[in-house]
């Protein structure tokens, strides 16, 4: 099987088992630049594992993942780490901000991990914080901001490196509807404006409604609803 034409990131026949339980059992995936794809499915279905595989955090037991023409599973751990630093961005449900660092330092962290100078990194961070309307929190620590604000800081951090793929794992899971929708609006707007692809793992339909299409994962198998119909 060849990846669908024009896809930025695609996966074929992914299999991954944790012990005796198969988290992924032949899952497929593909995303184009600028596309927002929701990964849906009941909990325990393997949707987070799919995201981890796609992002190169976890190596699948078998199957291929192609990013921008490169075979991800052929890369070394440090190469994949470097790729994650430069090309990917991440937003998780919670607990991702370093509690000791101020918000602006948190946002600047990926740039600094890439070897950027502190000053430049924090300037770029501030720009993104402005776009996500949290620039007034720059001196605050994560424990001093609300959940919605913290999540926006996290989104700003995920976008600060201008990633080509943004991975969001239940980004609104810990937020109320209003905050959740605001975060989703800002996230998808920002991603669209930079033509970044967004892999959005969620179980909420209203969050998934911000996507262009959805992929359903059930029992480790994926189902691309657009292509199926």
């Amino acid at each position, binding site marked *: 099987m060849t990846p669908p034409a024009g896809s930025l990131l695609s996966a074929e026949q992914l299999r991954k088992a944790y012990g005796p339980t198969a988290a992924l059992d032949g899952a497929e995936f593909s995303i184009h630049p600028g596309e927002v794809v929701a990964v849906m499915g009941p909990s325990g279905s393997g949707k987070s594992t799919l995201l981890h595989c796609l992002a190169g955090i976890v190596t699948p037991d078998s199957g291929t993942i192609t990013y921008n023409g490169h075979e991800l599973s052929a890369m070394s751990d440090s190469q994949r780490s470097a790729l994650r630093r430069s090309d990917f961005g991440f937003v998780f449900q919670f607990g991702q901000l370093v509690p000791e660092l101020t918000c602006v330092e948190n946002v600047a962290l*990926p740039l600094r*991990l890439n070897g950027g100078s502190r000053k430049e990194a924090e300037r770029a961070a501030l720009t993104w914080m402005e776009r996500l309307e949290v620039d007034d929190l720059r001196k605050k620590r994560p424990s001093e901001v609300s959940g919605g604000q913290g999540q926006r800081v996290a989104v700003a951090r995920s976008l600060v490196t201008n990633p080509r793929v943004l991975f969001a794992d239940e980004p609104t899971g810990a937020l109320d509807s209003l905050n959740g929708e605001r975060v989703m609006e800002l996230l998808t707007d920002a991603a669209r404006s930079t033509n970044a692809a967004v892999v959005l793992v969620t179980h909420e339909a209203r969050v998934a409604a911000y996507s262009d299409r959805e992929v359903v994962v059930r029992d480790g198998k994926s189902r691309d609803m657009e292509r199926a119909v």
Partner: protein
Amino acid sequence: MNVRQWAADLMLGVRFAFTGGREGWTRAVLTAVGVGLGVALLLLTTALPSALTVRHEREAARSDITFSGEVIPKADNTLVVARVDTDFREDDVRGRALEPEGPRAPLPPGVEKFPGTGEMVVSPALKELLESDAGALLRERLPDRIVGTIGESGLIGSAELAFYQGAEGLASHIETNQGRMERIDRFGDPEPVSERSDPVLLLLILVVFVVLLMPVAIFIATAVRFGGEQRDRRLAALRLVGSDSRMTRRIAAGEALAGSVLGLVFGTLFFLAGRQLAGTAEIFRVSVFPSYLNPSPLLALLVAVAVPAAAVLVTLFALRGVVIEPLGVVRSGRQRRRRLWWRLLLPVAGLAMLYPMIGNGRDNGDFNQYLVTGGVVLLLVGVTALLPWIVEAVVSRLGSGGVAWQLAVRRLQLSSGTAARMVNGIAVAVAGAIALQMLFAGVDSDYTRSTGKDVSRAQMEVTLPEEAPLEASAQKLRDTKGVQAVYDFSEGYLGDRATDAEWGTDLTVGDCAALRQIANLPSCRDGDVFAVHGAKWDTSLDDGNLAEPGRKLYLDPAYEGSPEKPDTPWTVPQDLKSAKPRSGLLDDEFDQSGFLMTPKAMPDTFASGLQGRAYLKIDRSVADVQDHVRNTAAGIGLLTDTVTWSEMERTDRYDVVRTGLFVGAACVLALIGASLLVSQLEQLRERRKLLSALVAFGTRRRTLSLSVLWQTAIPIVLGLLLASVVGLTLGAVLLKMTGTPVGVDWAGVLSMTGIGAAVVLVVTLCSLPPLLRLMRPEGLRTE
């Protein structure tokens, strides 16, 4: 508030301490082991004074030769005892030759029956040594049949080497061997002199105790806080189901109580095991029997009450700034900036307490035990008080650096108190150890320098019993393996009158080769007599004008009270030659003075009044050369005395102290390192989610590992710096107190800080595998 409610709350806490699955058990056992080690050390400390007392009592009970100077008449209840101590390799062997003079002769403690001639009873340690291959050389020296062992009541330590051998015909030698031989009708010192203990030694012991116990106390305080975060969460959950804040505090107290009581049990077991082990060990040439190590009941009770009480207090103190809400734990407010003044007050007060005693050791004055303990404790507590302030002050000024550095510094800024608390134990232990080592090094070099023997020409000295023929004995020594040269002399004393001499001087008889070793002779032939003029030490030859040819002198002049004996006169010959002094065979300071005589010039009458002595040059590369010599000497006669001289008599002993201190400090530091590791791991587990997230967006493992290293290393470096300063100060003050010149033992400082640094490294290394495991993406799957 009724008692039943209280008891129920405490019991609930006790239950919580041991439930919670494998993790709960691990935590409980860790706490118990930590507290247990501390308790064991405490119990040992309470037992030490009694152990030393018992040793002292046993020593007094078996004392025989009391230097009383009186000779009691022979009776059916008397016993003649001769001191026949010897050395084997580096160990002292206590030896006594016994000759009972009647059926009611006193038996020495621990001995059931007098050994007959050719028999001996020995201590278990000596028996084992004699029966082993290693003791073969000693067996040659002590060939008597072993007919029994000395019981515990006759020994001062399990590893003591001692023997009693049967002898005959000792009585006739009592007169001439006063101080080595005595007729007694009882063992035990009739007038025990309560020996005033050396104030410096007392100081050392006090400081050792304080320095060892302080970190243990801190360690216990840390140990009861293992799993603190988890406990807080559990307490919050309890609040949620309706317990009020007082109840949660009682439950927490119950948990601490459970851990510390289990710790007491562990500690007692450790102590009992250690006590048995102590029976087989020998530290600083001191060994004890397990039965000596009985903690005084009062002190043991104090430990049993104080440790749980302290554990509860520490827990409540730790909860002081914490508000346990049903939905979680809130640390009360932003921490106030730490104030410096009262923290500085502690060490300053400590110094103030020690200051008045400066120089007391030199004047042989006493040290006030309370002031010493108080001063040392205050200085060391000052470390724990100052460290949080220093860590806070330094960390808040630490500038930017790499990501790893930034992560570590920010974390420290947020919780500098926790960081400081973690290294407090290490800092106190290192400060104490540095001070102690300085004190040991200083005091010890004092003792070492005083020997000042010149051992280039001779290293051993053999004093022969009077009846032994000098020539033949010297030949035997010459034939001994490893002996390179023997200079043998007969020594006596010449007085200007036969009784109550006014002037007197030394007489030394030896061949030309031997005499040349002790004086500069112009020429020498057998038959010559020399007078040594201008000797540094004893100038009576010149002052008393004794070297006047024709003057009549008397060998071994009698004094009032000494037994009668015939006069042995000698006339200073006309052809007396003159000799110049030369530094003594063993001692630079000592010049041989008086008359030197070659064998042919010696009158026959002199033979019995002279003491034979041989100086030996030995080849140290020959294995056990000293013991070969001792064997030969023992073959010459029972009362032959052998001494080995060395330049630095106590060097090796200091090494032992140093090693002991090093090992002790290393153990304490390892203990603290273990607690560091536990809290480090706990902290890492808490951050599992964050770590996984950081890895997800591409953080290098190296970066996170480095940040963990910095996070441990920064407070420890600060702690070690402070510890060095306080340790050196304390050491200097203690040295000044003993009146010893202050010298810094840099090797000691370096090795102690080195161990401290090694602990950091090991803790970091040990936390790396779990860190790497936590950094796996599985951490993201927990929600």
